[in-house]
């Protein structure tokens, strides 16, 4: 059994009377894309926040590369290798595409405490940033202001910034959101190749993408994982059908 | 340190705090509902005081002066909201700070131009002057006692307004989710003007009431404004209850600190040094309190948890 790159062990989180996460144990093993699906309100964003560092679980633990990171801050988890894209793009809008990518590279390098040399002349940072931009196909827009990018291009930039970290695991929060068919196809193709670099925990609503990409699927309903398995297993699972997929699958 | 002196000072602290509450309540409402930081609130306090002094001076009636204060401040508030503040809701905090700072300049210099640089006088009306004997044989100025009562009545009124009336529901809804109430078809523009004018009236009332025991002059509002900010930081933005408790805490800390800190210092230093160190410390006491609250609760005692 391969060691999980990322794992949650029985995490639970309540907000008052609302049990947003109920005893959730999921893991991410090397080389896979593990999709998390579930209806709105199932607690997906709460789960993501506990994995990435924005929220502490009430009970249970989060492990990254075998280390317990439950009490580590977001930035420490990022430095240990957790790369993430946001559902609503979190980018420095006034800055250029290149600057955002360089920011990612800077974080990966870990030393922002330099005050005199121009950051855009740092060869190492530029190298990492440009490589990432080339991979997602944004290198030609390097000097465009992020605010002027199309929605699809911003999603690409999100992925590029995550790439600059050279992460050991990716958390992608609804990367297909707002993309048209063209964009979704391209991103799906891209993610397909990504899994060999680092496994991806993919939270998604877009079922076409999920069925095209996922090695495993976990279904989250009302804060609980009601099923985990391969695409076929999930499709055949009665509980899942009832709760979520309805007639479609 | 006699008990009588202690109780007297506590009452003073309470009175100071309650008047601060009137300022803080308006500020916290405006911020809670509209998300606007309003530096010009001190100017509205000043306008209330000047209206009261001017009208009381002309007519000889304190009560008319108070009514003028309420009306004048409310009207000024409504006007300012319609002309300037309206354009600020969508802007960031820096813009709001600068624009309302500009308003301070305009109001202060404008008032100085109309009324001159010398303070105006507002006298305590005869029917409220003189001491009153409290249980225990303590003599306390009737006027200050009245301020405490008026303040508490206003606090009660505000609580009722927020919890029992339609306006109150709109206010609470607005505090929770600004975008939602627009979607629900509530007339946001009118709601905001009303809330702003209400806050202004409270400030004007405070200015008029305090104007009778201190002087009415240009610039009287800003120190009170800043103290009201301290109250809100301690109490939590958007919480009227927080504003009341914070205000009373601040009032008591300031007054009692001024008495006790010099005394406390006498345990360590010679009397002259003790008094000077003590009163310096006392002037900082409120801010030390604020810093202490911040360390434990960055969003205040009753503010929304992050």
């Amino acid at each position: 059994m391969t060691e999980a790159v990322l794992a949650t062990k029985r995490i639970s989180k309540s907000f008052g009377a609302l049990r947003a996460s109920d005893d959730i144990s999921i893991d991410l093993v090397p080389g896979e894309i593990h999709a998390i699906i579930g209806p709105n309100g199932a607690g997906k964003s709460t789960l993501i926040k506990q994995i990435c560092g924005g929220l502490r679980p009430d009970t249970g633990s989060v492990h990254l590369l075998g280390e317990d990171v439950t009490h580590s801050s977001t930035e420490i988890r990022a430095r240990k290798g957790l790369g993430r894209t946001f559902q609503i793009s979190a980018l420095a809008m006034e800055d250029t595409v290149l600057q955002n990518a360089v920011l990612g590279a800077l974080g990966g390098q870990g030393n922002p405490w330099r005050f005199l040399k121009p950051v855009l002349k740092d060869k190492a940072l530029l190298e990492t940033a440009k490589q990432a931009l080339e991979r997602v196909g944004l290198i030609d827009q390097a000097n465009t202001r992020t605010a002027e990018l199309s929605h699809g291009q911003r999603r690409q930039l999100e992925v590029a910034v995550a790439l600059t970290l050279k992460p050991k695991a990716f958390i992608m929060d609804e990367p297909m959101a707002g993309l048209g068919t063209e964009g979704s196809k391209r991103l799906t193709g891209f993610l397909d190749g990504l899994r060999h670099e680092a496994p991806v925990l993919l939270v998604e609503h877009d079922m076409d993408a999920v069925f095209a990409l996922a090695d495993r699927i976990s279904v989250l309903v009302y804060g609980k994982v009601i099923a985990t398995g391969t695409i076929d297993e999930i499709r055949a699972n009665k509980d899942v059908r009832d709760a979520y997929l309805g007639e479609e699958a | 340190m006699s008990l009588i002196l202690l109780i007297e000072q506590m009452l003073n602290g309470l009175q100071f705090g309650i008047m601060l509450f009137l300022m803080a309540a308006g500020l916290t409402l405006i911020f809670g509902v509209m998300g606007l930081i309003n530096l010009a609130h001190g100017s509205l306090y000043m306008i209330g005081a000047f209206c009261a002094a001017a009208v009381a001076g002309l007519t000889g009636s304190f009560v008319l002066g108070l009514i003028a204060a309420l009306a004048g401040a409310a009207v000024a508030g409504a006007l300012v909201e319609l002309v300037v503040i309206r354009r600020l809701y969508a802007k960031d905090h820096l813009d709001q700070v600068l624009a309302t700072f500009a308003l301070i300049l305009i109001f202060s210099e404008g008032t100085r131009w109309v009324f001159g640089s010398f303070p105006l006088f507002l006298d305590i009306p005869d029917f409220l002057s003189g001491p009153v004997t409290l249980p225990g044989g303590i003599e306390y100025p009737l006027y200050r006692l009245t301020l405490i009562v008026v303040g508490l009545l206003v606090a009660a009124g505000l609580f009722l307004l927020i919890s029992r009336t339609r306006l109150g529901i709109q206010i609470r809804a607005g505090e929770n989710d600004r975008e939602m109430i627009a979607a629900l078809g509530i007339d946001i523009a009118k709601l905001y003007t009303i809330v702003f004018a209400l806050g202004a009236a409270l400030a004007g009332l405070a200015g008029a009431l305090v104007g009778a025991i201190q002087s009415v002059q240009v610039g009287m509002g800003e120190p009170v404004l800043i103290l009201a900010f301290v109250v809100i930081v301690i109490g939590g933005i958007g919480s009227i209850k927080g504003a009341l408790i914070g205000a009373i805490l601040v009032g008591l800390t300031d007054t009692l600190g001024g008495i006790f800190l010099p005394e406390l210092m006498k345990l360590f230093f010679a009397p002259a040094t003790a008094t000077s160190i003590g009163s310096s410390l006392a002037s900082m006491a409120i801010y030390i309190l604020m810093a202490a609250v911040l360390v434990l609760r960055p969003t205040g005692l009753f503010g929304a948890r992050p």
Partner: protein
Amino acid sequence: MTRETVFNAVVLAALAIVPLWAHVTGELFTITLATRAVILALAAVGLNIALGLGGLVSLGHAVFFGIGGYAMGILASHAQNYTPLMEWPFLIDGTKSMPVIWLVAIVLSALVAFVIGLLSLRTSGVYFIMITLAFGQMFYFFSISWSAYGGEDGLSIYVRNGFPGLNTLVPIQFYGLCFAILALVLLFAAKLQRSPFGLALNAARQAPDRVETVGLNPMRLRLLAFVLSGAITGLAGALFADLNRFVSPTMFSWQMSGEIIVFIILGGVARLFGPVVGAVLFVALEHFLGDLSDYWHIYLGFLLLGVVLFARGGVIGMLLGREKAHD
């Protein structure tokens, strides 16, 4: 060479030439005005590191201005009275040497900025604004009650402090000193903006979540920015006290804090020379409008309102057009 760089060079050149010309023609008052403008500009350049780059709306920056001023006042007054500052546990004499005073001003301001930053930066948005304002008041009232150094009346220093190799009593020489400091700090600020720290701080202003998820700590970035910012404004305070040979609690006042922010907004908040243009404009208005009317603050208020509502880019924005991305 961008338009902005050319503009900045012109401003710098003007700031060098005009006072020199005034020196030659004997217009000493112009030199004093220019010195005042340059020192206030320095205070604002300091603030702009926290405000423009870091997005920290500090409404209490006069704290550092006052600390710098009082550092000068206290050290110099002990020197001029020939009494030591402290005798026990070790002897500290006063001093009238500018470099020493500046060092003290900078270190003290940085320390205070560190403490205030540590307390205030745990909050954000409106809370931060109100807290910085409150700390400003705290120092203001404290200095009023500290009668050892003049209290409300302030402290006079009879003779300007000394700088090795210069005669600081000569207006153009003191001006040259202040101008040189401003130029150096501007150079530092320009480099800072383009540096890794600048990129990270600026990103933390726009998208703090993103900064965390790339492995950087926004709070630490902001704290350092606040400390640097306070230190520079503190230096300006020491210079200001030396210009006027007087220090008083008003250096701590909320009006002072407000004015420093006004300089930045008048000039243009995202611009390197915004604080400089704003301070020069303010001093010019203060002098010329102030002559015309006792109530010139009303005009300043309307001007400020106009800029905030309609000309957000300030004077530089109006002259040069749309802001470009930082490069």
